[in-house]
């Protein structure tokens, strides 16, 4: 006899409740997922924003909840465009396919971060060449440890894995529908991952900038043809491309389906992207947080066997922030330990101090200003007194299609002057040991011009 599924719920500070059924709870209770209770979402950011102690565990539950809401909205008959390609790929609500992919999407959202290392992104440079945390997630989802649970849920591990990590990190080709499902989780603009982490990180860090009207935003997400090109109006002389080509073919505009929004959601998507901008500038790229990441990576480089993280899932699963924190505490107490100085920087807050930040004025004089200053400082003070880090957003996410009330699609940046102006956030910083900071400040102020014009 078929057993009835029961529904459980967890309270969540961002979404109110996160609900899951008795099959899905098997994934939540798996050791692979429970490990995320011990991986901080924002690494050592709690040294700057004390409230930011939240873990990947609750984030992944939030991503599952958010992705499900997006799925329900975009597959709702009323919201599916009559465009033949879009109509043909979206399963009908209630059909077997609709239920199958909804479950796959939820599990992919839940498991998308299983491969995260201790302290999340902080020391990903210690993975072997060509390996990323997404690849580790893929290996864990498709590994023998989770095989049984996928069988019980009657879904294919490979489907969950490829949607969780997306086409960039997956060796297999994803169909258009699978690519869109993946976008619902890790998409540049409307991915549930981004929606949840901005809301959750801002909530825990106590930084209000990350908040936006995600209810309105999610309700207006649609699957739309990419609006990156439109045939010119008759008689347009703006561009000299082949008008005849357009007239011969109605295929001039790309019909590539992607996630966009209905016009009424434009303001909430502006708020989302500004929230992202503020969170990057205020929290993610905070200079003290950045230097803690560097000290942590230095420590791990000395503490891990061969200085690298293991990629074997069984070994990966045994390592969390707890083990690393304990090792840092031991190393801090023992001055003969190889990681002692980095451990002290972290535990006793004797972190390196920001000395130089790449800037437009210096780049005008020398596009390699950052490298020149860094090399000069390393020559003067030896490499162990200098640390540097360059980090940038990987995608800007502000170009997406908007469904107008006329039924046409238009590019977001054509409709919103504010979206078009959101800067991409990046930072390149040089830090110095506190012992030499005063001397370095004075030296760099007198020598910088000479260094830049070498």
């Amino acid at each position, binding site marked *: 006899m078929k057993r009835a599924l029961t529904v459980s719920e967890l309270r969540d500070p961002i979404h109110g409740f996160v609900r899951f059924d008795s099959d899905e709870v098997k994934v939540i209770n798996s050791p692979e997922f429970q490990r995320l209770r011990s991986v901080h979402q924002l690494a050592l950011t709690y040294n700057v924003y004390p409230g930011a102690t939240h873990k990947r565990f609750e984030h992944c539950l939030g991503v599952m909840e958010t992705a499900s809401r997006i799925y329900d909205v975009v597959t709702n008959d009323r919201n599916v465009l009559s465009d033949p*390609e879009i109509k043909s790929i979206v399963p009908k609500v209630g059909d077997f396919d609709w239920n199958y992919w909804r479950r796959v999407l939820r599990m992919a959202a839940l498991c998308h971060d299983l491969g995260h290392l201790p302290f999340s992104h902080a020391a990903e440079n210690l993975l072997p060449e060509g390996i990323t945390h997404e690849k580790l997630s893929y290996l864990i989802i498709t590994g023998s440890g989770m095989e049984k649970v996928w069988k019980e849920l009657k879904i294919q591990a490979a489907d969950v894995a490829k949607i969780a990590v997306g*086409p*960039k990190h997956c060796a297999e*080709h994803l169909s*258009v529908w699978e*690519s*869109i499902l993946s976008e619902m989780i890790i998409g540049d603009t409307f991915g549930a991952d981004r929606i949840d982490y901005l809301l959750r990180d801002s909530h825990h860090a106590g930084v209000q900038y990350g908040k936006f009207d995600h209810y309105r935003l999610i309700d207006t997400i649609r699957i739309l043809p*990419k*609006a*990156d*090109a*439109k*045939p*010119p*109006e008759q008689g347009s002389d*703006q*561009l*000299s*491309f*082949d008008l005849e*080509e*357009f007239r011969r*073919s109605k*295929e*001039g*505009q*790309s*019909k*590539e*389906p*992607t996630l966009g929004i209905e016009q009424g959601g434009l303001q909430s998507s502006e708020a989302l992207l500004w929230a992202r901008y503020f969170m990057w500038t205020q929290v993610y790229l905070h200079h003290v947080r950045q230097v803690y990441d560097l000290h942590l990576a230095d420590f791990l480089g000395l503490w891990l066997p061969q200085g690298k993280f293991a990629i074997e899932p069984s070994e990966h699963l045994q390592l969390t922030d707890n083990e690393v924190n304990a090792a840092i505490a031991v190393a801090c107490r023992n001055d003969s330990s190889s990681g002692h100085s980095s451990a002290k920087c972290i535990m006793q807050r004797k972190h390196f101090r920001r000395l130089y930040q790449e800037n*437009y004025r210096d*780049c*005008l004089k020398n*596009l*390699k200003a950052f490298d020149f200053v860094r090399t000069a400082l390393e020559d003067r003070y030896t490499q162990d007194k200098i640390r540097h880090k360059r980090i*940038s*957003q*990987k*995608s*800007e996410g502000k*170009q997406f299609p908007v469904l107008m009330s006329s039924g046409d699609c*238009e*590019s977001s*940046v*054509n409709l919103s002057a504010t979206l*078009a102006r959101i*800067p*991409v*956030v*990046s930072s390149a910083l040089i830090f110095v040991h506190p012992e030499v900071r005063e001397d370095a400040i004075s030296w760099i102020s007198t020598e910088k011009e000479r260094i830049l014009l070498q």
Partner: protein
Amino acid sequence: MEILDRYCLALELAVSLKENGSWAGETHVQKAGYFLVELLNVPLGVKFILYKHGPFSFELREMLTQMEALGFIGWKPMPPYGPSIEMGELGSALRAGFGDLAEKYRDQISFISRHLGHRNVAYLERIATALYVSKEGCRDSARVGRIKELKPHVDVFLAEQAVKEFDKISQLANSLNLIA
């Protein structure tokens, strides 16, 4: 090869596309970049995969984002078209200081821009997919079948046209010794 050299290569491609009638939206740079890398072996340093409507490089998207962050390029809204790449505040400095690699591959950049610059996005998606299936090892008419298999929304006639057009470009590139 330095990252700034590769940024300059991407910037020169966008500039050249514009000179050849393109509004240089992201799809144009992506598909033209795919031809540069996979047909002419120009070392742009990015990998492509088959995405929804044709070859696409997430690494090239990241590269363009980083170039925007560093002030080498910007995006200009161009209603009713999609946004167009334009030179950023530091674009001229990049071209002046790191143009050697772009200069070395100037003929390849010009060739691709001349052949693809004036084409619309749907055409670029099809012809780039024709290159993709050719690189897979498909031969002759089997390529049309493979395009249909990968991209069912593409009309057979247009898939045949894409394969013919690709062959023409490929033969011409060969005869001009442009394959690095």
